[in-house]
């Protein structure tokens, strides 16, 4: 088993249903964040309990059409992170990112343009969050002429980034991996479709043999690695489903994968 699974193997799910990534699909993930790492070992460094992994959000990606290689395509994304003030507290606030993404069904899921909203709302009974008064904050992104232009608040000049490589995102890169189009090479990365992290590398990982809910799987892996990002390990099963995207302290774990 690859070392990137260190924290999370117990949270992976086995799926019996068939799944064809070439067809329209909807994939759903839970976000697991690991905390309280000190309690995970005794004073001799020996593991004593399960790491205290918590579900702290979700990711849903939907592609309503089949993807034709090299052709424009669209994804819908809802990415929710629910936060706690303290480890043992209930989640007190949700941060919701929703996006409609136009991209190219190529080797990395190159971004073309997108509309997104970002919204921060309290989760009752917490009542003192001002931002529930504000509407979702809208942003648009447009790629062209070796630049990406991200427009935010009305009347504010856009953010402009010079591209050294084709730009991708977590969501479109996952689509490229899942659809089998992925090729290794360098990319510029729009983290949360907003934070520009250029010059990352997509590379392959050695296969990983994992037991998931009593079933043996040979997982295929890719990683996004390079400056200004913790390595993101993307693991898929024999039917190309992406089971997990694993960072250092956070993992996206597949809960549902269906063709539409």
């Amino acid at each position, binding site marked *: 088993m690859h070392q990137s699974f260190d924290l999370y193997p117990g949270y992976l799910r086995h799926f019996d249903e068939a799944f064809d990534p070439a067809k329209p699909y909807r994939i759903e993930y839970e976000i697991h964040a690991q905390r309280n790492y000190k309690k995970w070992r005794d004073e001799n460094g020996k593991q004593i309990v399960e790491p205290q992994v918590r579900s702290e959000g979700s990711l849903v990606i939907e592609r309503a059409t089949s993807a034709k290689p090299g052709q424009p395509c669209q994804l819908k994304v809802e990415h929710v992170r629910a936060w706690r003030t303290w480890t043992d507290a209930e989640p007190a606030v949700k941060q919701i990112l929703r996006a409609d993404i136009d991209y190219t069904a190529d080797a990395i899921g190159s971004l073309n343009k997108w509309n997104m909203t970002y919204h921060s709302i309290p989760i009752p009974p917490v009542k003192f969050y001002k931002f529930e008064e504000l509407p979702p904050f809208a942003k648009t992104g447009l790629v062209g002429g070796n630049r990406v232009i991200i427009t935010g608040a009305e009347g504010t000049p856009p953010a402009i980034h010079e591209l050294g490589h084709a730009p991708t995102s977590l969501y479109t890169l996952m689509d490229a991996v899942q659809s089998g189009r992925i090729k290794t090479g360098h990319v510029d990365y729009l983290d949360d479709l907003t934070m520009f992290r250029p010059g990352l590398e997509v590379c392959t990982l050695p296969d990983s043999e994992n037991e998931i809910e009593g079933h043996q799987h040979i997982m295929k892996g890719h990683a996004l690695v390079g*400056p200004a990002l913790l390595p993101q390990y993307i693991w898929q099963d024999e039917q190309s489903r992406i089971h997990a995207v694993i960072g250092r*302290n956070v993992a996206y774990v597949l809960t549902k994968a269906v063709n539409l």
Partner: protein
Amino acid sequence: MSESFDFNSLDRRNFLKAGSALSLSTFFKFSEAAPSACCPGPDTRPNILFLNLDQLSHLAVSAHGNPYVKTPNIDRLAKRGVDFSRSYTPDPICCPARSAWCTGRYSSETNVVVNNRTIRKDLPDYGQWLGKSGYQTVHIGKWHVPGRMLKESFQLVPHNSHPQGEYSDNLVAMSFEAFLANRDRNRPFFAQVGLMNPHDCGNVPRSSKLPFPFPHLKDQLPPFPPNFEYDPREPEQFKKMFNGLRHAFTREWTEENWGHYQWIYYRMVEMVDVNVGYILDTLERSPDFENTLVVLTSDHGEGKGYHHMLFKDNFYDESSRVPTIVAFPGKVPEGVHDEEHLVSGLDFFPTFCDYAEVEPPKDLRGLSLRPVLEQKETEWRRYLLSQSRASGRMILDERYKFVRYNGSPTTQLFDMIDDPLETKNLAPEAAYADVCQRLADEIDRVESTLDNADIPKSLLYPKV
């Protein structure tokens, strides 16, 4: 108006009024020495953006000469402001440092001498103080001051949280953008933005004794740090910490494992640097840029293998020396690398008050950086005191660092000019006895002036 006021019944405008009133009523419970409200008419006082990171060592910034990390955005801020080279945390761990920032008092006074002890109720914090003076105060991201609810200190709170930086810091930066686009333009803002990275490097050791998983990138792994071998004559508390780390994590680590740890840490630093850049870009594109004071710092540093140490909570420079960069267009000179002034996290509260034209609370322990920033004559401190784990004290002067812990017969003295990597403990040498005594006396002198909280003896004099 009481603290149980129902905010959900308010529209936006009334919410702001209620927020002010709430802050006011809460504040007056803490102190009768309240500052006077701002003058009538348009309030043109500067905005203040307090950008704080978590576990960023001074030495982990590319502008400070580290070849293993690239921080173009922090470097950019340094180029357009004053970069204090001799800046130290008041206490090299999260809650104590943050409680000291926000009250301008030592952790022994705030009661937060270790993580998760609650703060004294009678000390006002900068959110309350500036809110009372008419500032729109907002907190975004990490707070980590136990016992002080954010709503007592900030009128506008998009969220409070303490999650992992790798999936939260983007949203903290975006929340600042959303705040700036929707803020009350009739008054200045004080925004405390707490980014979490690179804090969670602490989660690395579970697996980093495994081989580095990207063989083709192995040439990026930093070698052993230059003071990996060091003088082991340390206070018992350090030895205990060191032995704990060895036992739990590092005993079998190879140079590749230590390099892996550093490599991960530096990627986390770079991650948050992008978030810093986003926030700075957002501000620079806004009409608020010209009138906003920006202060960037960190609550403490990170051991990252220096002296065989990981994490924080000790007085070596990697853990206790933090970046402090201040920029203010047209008001603070650009590109100044200040190696002269000893700066403490205790200085932020008085600095904010100075720029906000507000009389600070009584008995703040720090100094306003404003005269230094504006290159005016001022009498500055000769000594800087820092505390740790209730029982530890560090004091610096222009040349030396002296460290002592209650209950430990071993003290440390380093010549920070001739031995900046702190490899040779001079304290046991007779030739330095006078220096040690002078610095110990200065610790005692400062400590005798403090209004300390009631700290249990088990913390003040721990068994080691």
